[in-house]
């Protein structure tokens, strides 16, 4: 190996430039763990839900307009689901979230299903959708920056134009929320985007607006958390004015409080979420997994990524030292 000293140093300097390029922007890239000051979200109280699925119907309708999370150019009707093979006549009765369905109301049943919101011999409704994590795994893993978190409202949204379709977001989301358009040749990832496109018209989440019972309400996350806390403090049977549609609504419905099973879901799960939930049946019976991390998941990878510049530095310094040492005897040759 004949390498002139100058050429060698030159190639080294070039690589050093690459090192700086990887090193510098990293310092500013770390994801925030803090709730944005104006963050908005939803409170879903399962004990108020009657399973009418108005939220599902209106979510699909309101998101199939330009700007909506289901909208595609040239779309004439919302993307309704067909039944499974052999049962195609079933009209838009999805069983799971999908590339066409952003939220879903499911039912929990046990024994003779006699009483609502009771784990044994009871039944309950529950809602699945994106929870809008404070520090979202889907945003942190996307290699193209197609998933974003709005710095003001904290809504986690998606830019189809950037997406390459690697589906890392699907793998990374601890709640298994993002869905893919498997039936398309140019697919998009689909999930609730908190009706972001409706805010500039002074509107808010469709599922909250069209919820007749106040089971889903929209509002500032801090206010939603305070509301949830107040409800948890109620004695079962105590009467309470539940706000309708929005947490700051003047219209309320007076009802007796049910017995809540767990605390608020979404305060610590995955480091906290902007959509939170209350339920009369404990969440793990409803299929919300127990082993969801209680901290911000992106910090798991950040520890790794932060080491990258050091690897380059180490290899080039160590490599140069070794090269010098091992090629000393060759110099004459």
């Amino acid at each position, binding site marked *: 190996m004949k390498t002139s000293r100058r050429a060698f140093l030159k190639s080294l300097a*070039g690589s050093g430039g690459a090192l700086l390029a990887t090193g510098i922007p990293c310092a500013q890239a770390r994801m925030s763990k803090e709730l944005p000051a104006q963050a908005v979200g939803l409170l879903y109280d399962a004990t108020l839900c009657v399973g009418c699925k108005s939220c599902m119907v209106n979510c699909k309708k309101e998101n199939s307009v330009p700007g909506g999370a289901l909208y595609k150019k040239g779309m004439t009707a919302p993307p309704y689901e067909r039944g499974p093979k052999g049962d195609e006549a079933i009209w838009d009765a999805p069983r799971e979230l999908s590339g066409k369905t952003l939220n879903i109301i499911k039912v929990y049943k046990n024994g003779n299903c006699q009483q609502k919101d009771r784990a044994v011999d009871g039944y309950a409704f529950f809602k699945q959708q994106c929870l809008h994590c404070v520090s979202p795994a889907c945003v942190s893993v*996307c*290699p193209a920056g197609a998933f974003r978190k709005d710095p003001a409202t904290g809504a986690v949204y998606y830019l189809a134009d950037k997406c*390459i379709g690697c589906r890392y977001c699907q793998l990374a989301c601890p709640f298994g929320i993002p*869905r893919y358009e*498997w039936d398309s040749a140019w697919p998009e990832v689909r999930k609730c985007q908190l009706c972001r496109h409706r805010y500039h018209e002074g509107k808010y989440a469709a599922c909250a607006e069209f919820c007749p019972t106040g089971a889903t309400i929209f509002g500032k996350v801090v206010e939603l958390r305070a509301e949830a806390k107040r409800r948890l403090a109620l004695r079962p049977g105590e009467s309470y004015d539940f706000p309708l549609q929005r947490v700051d609504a003047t219209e309320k419905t007076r009802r007796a409080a049910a017995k809540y099973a767990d605390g608020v879901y979404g305060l610590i799960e995955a480091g906290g979420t902007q959509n939170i939930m209350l339920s009369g049946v404990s969440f793990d019976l409803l299929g919300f997994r127990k082993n969801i991390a209680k901290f911000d998941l992106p910090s798991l990878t950040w520890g790794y990524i932060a080491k990258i510049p050091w690897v380059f530095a180490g290899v080039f310094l160590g*490599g140069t030292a070794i090269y010098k040492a091992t090629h000393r005897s060759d110099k004459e040759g």
Partner: protein
Amino acid sequence: MKDLTKYLGPRYGGAAKQLAEDFRKNGLGMDMTRYLGPRYGELLNKLLDDSISAHLGIKMNTPFTLALVALIGVAALIAVYRLLFGIGAASNLNDAWPWGLWISFDVLGGVAMAAGAFLIAAAVYIFNWKKYKCIARASILNAFFGYLLAAISITLDVGRSFVIWHPLVMWQLNSVMFIVALHLVLYLTTLGTESSPMVFEKLGWQGALSFVNRCMVGVVMFGVALSLLHQSSLGANYLIVPGKLNPIWYSHLLPYHFLVSAIMLGLALVSFETLLTGKVFNHKVPREVIEGLARGVMIVGSFYLFLKIWHLATGPGLGAVLDGSFLGNLYLIEMVVGVIVPLSLLCLRSVRTNLNRIFAVDIMVVLGVLLNRMNVGISGVSEYATGSGGDYFPSLMELALTVGMIAFAILGFKICAKYLNLFPETHH
């Protein structure tokens, strides 16, 4: 021979006939200047001159080669189908199993199989261990094909293949996948550069040759850094799924598990391939090189074993893999076949000094680590995915494409062995 003038008219028919006859007589060794003019013909003549490998006795016109070509053809058709009709149409992937065979085998496995190159390159160019020089070119070329396989497969795996370049311009520094994409491109370039002297030599482009040789040490170091990162970042991809990947594989040290096992696999694969090419092509394998590689496998493998035991002891416990469950058994197979048996065998002097036995050990290591990648990528997330209502077994198209990619790598390697000076030291 049919009279082609009948179909193509006198002008083209005559030329085609001449070409066909020439080909029958001389094969690809025919004089290309006759058809392409002096400039390009000369170039092609030089490239297609296989006198360099005459002593290896590589024949192209064999049933094996034809089978490879057929497999590649099938894979190409599948690739076209996939691009036209979408990933959902070609694969069995679904919302609960977003990643399947192509990611686990082609990408995780293909990249791991390429790990030998940076080790050998570092040994030769940085550590100046001259005895490994004779296998440097072959192992770097092998890595090039490993990475190419990974790159093509991931291009087909992403749903929007035509914009797969997005991450390169839309930097997202929190994403391990971004790091993976960047490294894939950079390292493919690096491997290409490291392999280029073979081609330049052949074409007699002295200027380019000496330029590349002058940069070589820097390029090699760059490659080492990229490889360390790339191998480990494939494991780091899974750091963010503590709730999905089964605890018998999930670990905060997953990047290190991937890196160390890839090094073990890389050394074993270089040794395997040196022995294999020694068997099928007529060239003699330097014994001390193979024995050195076996020692390397032993050292790195022991460290890997230590990491894995440490992981079990501090995490899920030995009981988790001995409980007879499907995943536990997969884990045991992976460890016994890929690590424990090979290491025990390598402890015996009679194995370490016998090339055929080393060959067998290499195969076990390769299979074991590949199984590990499949376990992490597919089986390891099964509990989460089936719990969420999914089910996955690779579709025929997924399987056939993977097989085709392997065929592509083998054929590519064979062609390079025929036309390039792949084993320089044995060429006297």
